[in-house]
Each structure stands twice: as C-alpha cells, then as structure tokens.
C-alpha cells in the first residue's frame, strides 16, 4: 500500500472473503477493458489467483449509450485456486444506464452495484431503450435486490481535476480511474501498480505527463471518496492465494498461443512461418507474432484465408515450421488446403480460435461448434490430429504439443482454442525453458532406396511418417501433389488396392499419435455415478462444477480432453467406470456424437449456445437433474 493512501480517516470493518467477482461495464469509449485489466494486475501482483473475461461490444464504435456499445470486463480474484472468472457478479461497476441494463441480471442477489449517477438521465435512458420516465435507480424491486451505490462520478472527477488544465472531454476520460479508485478502496488493493502503469504509459510512452497526472489524481480521488463518503459499511479483503511457488505473469490465451508457437520453433531449431488473414478473435495472434521477428518468426498477412493455409503448406514443404490461424469461417475456407497437407503428408498446424456461428454469427462471442469440422470437414478421408487447450496458460503447452505431433507424424494438426480462453487471462507459472523437450526433426540428406533413388513415401515403421526431405537437398528431388500416391514412390496412382491401402495408412498414422499423448486424468474418484467429460475452454467451469458437486456429497468426477483425435488410449476405460457420462459443450452435442458413435455409450449432453461460458450453477443443477438427485 502506498503511503499516500494508508491513513484511514474513519474506521471501517474489513471482512475477509475467499473470492470476489467484479465486473466493470460502460460505453465502449469508457475504457472498461483498461480499467478491468489494471485491477486484474493489481490483484495478481498482490498474490491472488485471478481469472478474467472481457466481453467486447459487437460494434467497434457503436453510438454512445446504446446497449450494443456496452463493453464489459469481469475479473475474479481469490485466495483459493480458481478456474473461472466467476458465475455471479459480486460487484458491478456501471458507468452508464446501458451498462446497467445489460449486466444487472448477472449480479448476485445482495450484490454491490456502483453506478455513475450523473449518466442516469432521460437522454441516456432513451438511448438504451428504457422508458424515459423510468429511472432504474429508483426501482424498488431493484433496490431491494441489490445494494445500489450512487456516485456522481462525472461531477466528482471534474471537481478533482479543476486545475488540471485539460479540456472537459479529457477530464471526463479520467472517470474510469475514479471508479477504479473506489473499487481499490472497497477491496483494499494498493494503487501503486496502477500509478506505475499510468506513469509509464501516458507519461513515458505517449509523452503526455499531464494526462498521467490527471488519471493518477482521479484514481486517488476515487480511493479517498471510498474512504470518506461512508457509502460502504464494510471493506472486503481477499488474502493471497496459495499458488504453486515460482514466478508468475498474467497471460491471455491468445498471448500464450503466440508464445507457445515461438517456443516450439525455438525447440525445433526452425523458423516459424505464420500465414494468416485477419479475423476476430484470432487476429491478436498475428499481431503478437508480427512483433517477434527477432525470435525467428516470419509472418505473412495473406490476401485471404485460402492463401494463408496454402502459403503455410508451401513453407512447410520448404522446411520451416508452418502455422496458419483463423476462426471458424476461415477454417471452412482452409478445408481444401488442409486436405492437401493430409495428402502431401507435411507438418502443418492450424489454429482455430472458435467463435459463435454459423456464418458470421457473433464474432466477439465464444462457442465450441467447430469440433466436427476440425475432425471431418474436408473432402475424402482426410484425418488430422486435433488438440484443444483448456485454459489461457494451457495454450502455451498445447501449442508446443501441436508442433511436436505435426512433425513426428508429418500431418496437419488442428488447434482448437476459443474466444473465451483466447481473451480471458489467468496467472501463468513461467515455464523452465530448459525443461521443455526439444522437438526432434530430421531432414534426410541421403537416398533411402538401395537402387540409389529417393522414395518420398517410404515410411518409418514406428510412426508411419514419411521422410521430410526439403528442396535444396541434392539428389532427393521429388514431386508431391494432391493426386493419390503410390506407396513408397509417391508416383501418381489410380490403382484400387493402392488407394485403399493409402487411405488406411494415413488414418492409421494419425491414430499412432495415441502412443505418445498423455492418458486422460480423472479429477475426483476414479469411478462413480457420473463423469462430467469436457474439452477445450470449458475446463475451468466444468472442473469447478465437479468440485462443488463432490463437496455437496455427490459421486461426480470430471475429466477434460485436450486431445480429440486421436483420443487418449485410456478413454474407453475411463468411460466404462462411470454409470453416466455427461458431456457439457457450448454446441449442440458434437463431442457427444463422437463419444456415442465411437464407444456405443449412452452419454448425455448439457448444451448451451449463448455466446458465453456456462454458469457453474447451471452445470451443477443440470448435472443433478441428469443423475436424478
């Protein structure tokens, strides 16, 4: 705590709590993402476990005050190990009526709702679709349900900055820091990290020390307001979490994805060639990688999705680690290219940061509905390895894993992230780089046929992979193509037996990956009434629901698949040990179909497509319904 802020003028009780979920919301121009991010940093640096979820508005610059221009940022910080940004919001900060209107229903009964009272006027009610005569702050029902705290933030911010020498607009831009100051007081978090950021960002980077000073002033004013205004009967305190010892940083899924692939390239002693076309919510991977040229990264912003996958395949053929990235609509466009990579048997990794579909759908919202496309969405029998990170920091590990598999089995690997983990953040225990196994790659330099010719499709008996001979190697000149290959020689072949064999071999090769992928772990008892089986970004929610169910005395375990093709070898064994298999997914039941078809198990789905993560409480309730409790 900085010395500026630690002299309490009045005594307020401090109540210890395990975890708090706060949501900041307001107009897209109100700086809510920044505010939430700064509070997250503060909590993380303090030593809390954190999980965040930014809820971006559908439109970049929607008219001010409208509901579709609302930007939200939720953070849960805790003294215990947490896996999600939280279900019910304990405290909401609403900078305008539109934010209030679209977020109030997520606040827990009795929860704190801090509003910028100055924005609650007739004009703004109209903009967000309230009756002009209705002021929600005066609604008895709402006041009974929540602790609504009215703060005239606009006026107070202006008053605190009367001598800042800035225009009214710039002064008003500091309101978010005023709000952050109040929240920091309420949850007893220090201001130092935020002050440091404001100094660095506005003061040094943007060379606007007056803006930094004004923001800092507003922040402190908000903090002192909390202290003196007697609006809050208690303060809350969330103790440090007992995380595994080590050095941490906060990381989002997209950042971890980019860093994971850079690390994979370094571990493989290769250049990373990233070919991509801008698309929400995957573009951040392109932005991050394009800044990392010094780390052996070449990025290519292609003219379209198809060009991006094809350029990546070209780069792979020429011997570098090739990556392309997109979201669902782009994965559809890349299908033919991925099929070619299956045929050429070259390593390729395809990132799909899934979003809500079909078609353009809801680009800023999350979904898990590309699984079947990843598994089967290509012409002919064209199996790919499919992996799915389960949390923001897991993106790092699974990225390395994706390339390890792609080069070992000489095939495309599809990496299914989603908008929820891509934009969400959590603490990341920084890995020991030396402890990460190198990715072994061998490019032959000698022919592999006794007669002195080169057989590009002669396979390694262990992995069934063909040799990755690259252009520039003398004596190994060969032609690859999309036409069916004769075994060994790779010459074009229409022979029926050969085709049958080649289709089977390509499929068998992908299944071979099960030899080295880790076995599925069960959380909770190894057998019992029900297993909640998930994949991808739902890990945190399903795990928390499972923990709650067990705490309540139910025989429910959880397991989460990071490998979707092939499955871990022990999956059928795990499935066989539970009476009911329940598969929660943010789709209409895609993993469910695969599990039912593969293992003839009468698994049951819990399915929702709201563009959002499940609520833990809903999962708990639906699970209880299914198991009949």
């Amino acid at each position, binding site marked *: 705590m900085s010395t500026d802020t630690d002299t309490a003028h009045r005594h307020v009780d401090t109540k210890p709590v395990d975890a708090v979920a706060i949501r900041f919301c307001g107009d897209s121009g109100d700086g809510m993402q920044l505010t939430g991010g700064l509070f997250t940093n503060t909590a993380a640096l303090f030593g809390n476990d954190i999980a965040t979820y930014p809820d971006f508005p559908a439109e970049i610059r929607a008219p001010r005050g409208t509901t579709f221009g609302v930007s939200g940022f939720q953070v849960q910080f805790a003294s215990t190990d947490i896996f999600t940004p939280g279900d019910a919001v304990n405290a909401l900060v609403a900078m305008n009526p539109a934010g209030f209107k679209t977020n109030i229903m997520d606040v827990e009964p009795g929860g704190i709702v801090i509003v910028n009272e100055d924005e609650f006027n007739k004009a703004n009610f109209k903009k967000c679709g309230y009756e002009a005569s209705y002021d929600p702050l005066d609604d008895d029902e709402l006041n009974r349900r929540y602790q609504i705290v009215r703060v005239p933030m606009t006026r107070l911010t202006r008053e605190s900055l009367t001598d800042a020498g800035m225009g009214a607009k710039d002064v008003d831009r500091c309101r978010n820091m005023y709000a952050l100051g109040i929240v920091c007081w309420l949850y007893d978090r220090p201001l130092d990290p935020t002050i440091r950021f404001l100094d660095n960002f506005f003061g040094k980077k943007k060379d606007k020390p007056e803006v930094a000073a004004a923001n800092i002033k507003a922040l402190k004013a908000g903090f002192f307001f909390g202290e003196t205004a007697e609006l809050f009967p208690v303060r809350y305190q969330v103790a440090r979490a007992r995380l595994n010892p080590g050095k941490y940083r906060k990381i989002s899924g997209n950042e971890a994805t980019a860093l994971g692939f850079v690390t994979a390239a370094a571990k493989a002693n290769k250049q990373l*060639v990233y070919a991509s076309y801008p698309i929400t919510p995957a573009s951040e991977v392109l932005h991050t990688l394009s800044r990392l040229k*010094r780390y052996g990264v070449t990025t290519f912003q292609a003219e379209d999705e198809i060009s991006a996958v094809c350029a990546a395949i070209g780069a792979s053929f020429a011997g570098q680690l*090739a990556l392309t990235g997109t979201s669902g609509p782009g994965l559809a466009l890349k299908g033919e290219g991925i099929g070619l990579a299956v045929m050429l048997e070259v390593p390729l990794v395809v990132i799909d940061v899934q979003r809500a579909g079909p078609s353009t759908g809801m680009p800023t919202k999350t979904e898990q509905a590309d699984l079947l496309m990843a598994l089967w969405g290509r012409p002919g029998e064209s199996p790919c390895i499919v992996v799915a990170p389960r949390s923001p920091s897991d993106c790092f590990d699974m990225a390395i894993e994706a390339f390890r598999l792609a080069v070992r089995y000489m095939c495309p690997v599809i990496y299914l992230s989603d908008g929820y983990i891509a934009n969400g953040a959590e603490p990341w225990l920084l890995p020991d780089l030396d402890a990460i196994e190198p990715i072994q790659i061998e490019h032959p330099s000698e022919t592999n046929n006794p007669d002195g010719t080169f057989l590009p499709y002669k396979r390694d008996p262990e992995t069934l992979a063909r040799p990755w001979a690259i252009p520039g190697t003398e004596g190994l000149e060969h032609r690859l193509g999309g036409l069916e290959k004769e075994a060994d020689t790779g010459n074009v072949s229409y022979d029926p037996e050969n085709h049958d064999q080649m289709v089977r071999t390509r499929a068998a090769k992908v299944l071979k990956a099960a030899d080295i992928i880790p076995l599925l772990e069960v959380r909770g008892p190894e057998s019992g009434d029900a297993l909640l089986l998930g994949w991808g970004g739902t890990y945190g929610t399903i795990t928390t629901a499972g923990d709650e169910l067990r705490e309540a005395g139910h025989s429910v375990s959880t397991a989460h698949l990071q490998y979707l093709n092939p499955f871990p070898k022990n999956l059928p064994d795990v499935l066989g040990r539970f009476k009911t298999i329940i598969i929660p997914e943010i789709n209409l039941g895609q993993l469910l179909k695969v599990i039912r078809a593969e293992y003839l198990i009468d698994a049951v789905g819990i399915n929702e497509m709201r563009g959002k993560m499940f609520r833990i409480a809903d999962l708990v309730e639906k699970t209880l319904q299914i198991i009949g409790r």
Partner: protein
Amino acid sequence: MHDTQLPTYKPKDFATDQDVRWCPGCGDYAILKAVQKTLPTLGRRKEDYVFVSGIGCAARFPYYMDTYGLHSIHGRAPAFATGIKLANPALDVWLVSGDGDLLSIGGNHTMHTMRRNVDINILLLNNRIYGLTKGQYSPTSEFGKKTKSTPVGSPDYPVNPLSWAIGGGCTFVARSIDIDVLHLEKVMARAAAHRGTSFVEVYQDCNIYNHQTWFYASQKKTRPDSTIQLEPGKPMIFGADSDKGLQMDGTRLKVVELGNGVSESDLLLHDETDRGLAFMLTQLSFPEFPEPLGIIYASTEQETYDHVVHEQIRQAIEMDGKGDLHKLLHEGETWVVEDD
C-alpha cells in the same frame, strides 16, 4: 551450403522417368522442352529449383521436371510459391499453370503475388479453354465462344492477362508462343534473370478442345502480320516484308505502312521500362493490330517481397539483437509466489 562445383547439366537431366500424359500434338510438349533446355543455361543447381502448379493440363508440368515439385490445388499455386519463398528465399521457384487456374479460380492469388513482387517466375500456358475438365470456356475465351458449357456462345468478356498483370503491378511482363521454342527460351532466360515476379503468357494450342485458336499468331503465313516482335530500343516494325510499324497518333497507337514519307525513324521505339506504353501494347489485339511478342515490360525499381520481409527480420535483429526467449516469456509485470 554447396561446396562442390556447379555440375554441367543437360536438358535430359531435368526430365523425369514419368510418361508425359498430354495429348499428342498438345502445345505443352514444346513448352516443357523449352524449359528443360533453358534451365541448364541458368547457372543454378538442380536441387534449388522448385516447380509449383495448380490444377489443369498445364499443371501436370512439375511431374515431368526432375526438380523439387509441388502439384497443388486448383488456383492456389501462387500462394504455395509465396510460402516456399518465405521459408527459403534461396530457392528458385517456377510456377506453371493454365488460364483457368491462374486467372479464374486463382485470379485473386495471381494478382496479389504480382503486386507483392514475390521473386518467382510464372508461366501462364494460355489455351483459352478448360482442357482437363473436357472443354468448357475459360476466362480468356472469346465473347460468344461456343463450348460445352456455352452452347449458344459465351456471355463473358475475356480477361486480358497481360493488361491485368500490368495493372496488378507486375514488374516483368512478356509473351511467347508454343511453336517457337527459340523465342520461348530467350524470353524464359530473361524471366529467370528478373528479380521479382515475372509473368510470361505463352500462347498454347489445345489440340483437342480448342485447336487452332492461336493459328493466326502461330502459322508461318499469317504470323508476320498478326504479331510484332518487341526489341528494346528498336522501332516497332512488323509484317512479312517488314513494311509496317506502330506509331503514336495523339494518345493512341496506330498501324502505319512504311514508305510514302513514313520511315523507321517515325516509328515508336520500344521502351521496356515504360509502364504506360506497356499497358498500351498489351491492349493490342488482332486483327486491328499485331499482337506483341517478347518482353513488354521489365522494371527493376521495386524490391522483391521476399527480400523486404527477410530484410525486416535482419534489421530487427541488428537493432535489438537476436531474441532471447527467456526474456520474452518473462516480459511485463511478474510476481513471485514464495514456497511456504
């Protein structure tokens, strides 16, 4: 990488053992031969060549070249070629494909590769028809052309590949014809020497579905009057008796007869570096005008895409040093959780 001396290659060193499967009499044979004759003269090692193609009759080309080769998918060859150059700029990448592949399904990629000036050579084997799918009209087929898919005539106006290339910012634009192997070799050697995207349209006869489409330009009797050989710095003369030429008339080109007060010095001189002139030349079409053959445009002013990309990487490393992965991961605010 290679410490041994450059071997002396013969054309047959570039031929594979695969049976060539084009129809007898197809123009592609002559073009294949010209390429196989040209490569040994270029002073490069065989293993550094990569032939890339899309789909179509012409796209079978890589199978017949004993180099590295990639027979890719329909229309996307320019994207594969770009990726290869990004991964290894030292490779010499040749893209051979047809008019449907490069101008229809792959038109987008062709155009963007040209504007980026990726350092590759593109050979467009233009036969103005879809051969492999058995005779539908292509983007270069004439308006009104009757084909299997246009029984009463094509309603599309054709694309002019070379005008398109000039408009797309291509830095080397040329035209040749399948029956003239010597001319092909000359043009290809120049294309190979060009740094940046070279685009060579080759008039190619599809013996089966569009026979004789280029006969006006290929036959001894009609060729001199229907085509004009461009030579840098030389006056634009054509005709069986070299008695005709091209002159500027206001803002347009016109055909003039030599004599009657018109001499060679009144004719337009070819300037390969003049983009405006190049566009005008690509617009000339028979029978109103002779169609130009040879190097229409060649500019070395623009850096290649692959060079710029790799230069950016080099400069980033020069400025801040090679990236330290450990530092990168530990960037930003970090905190330590102590063992307790």
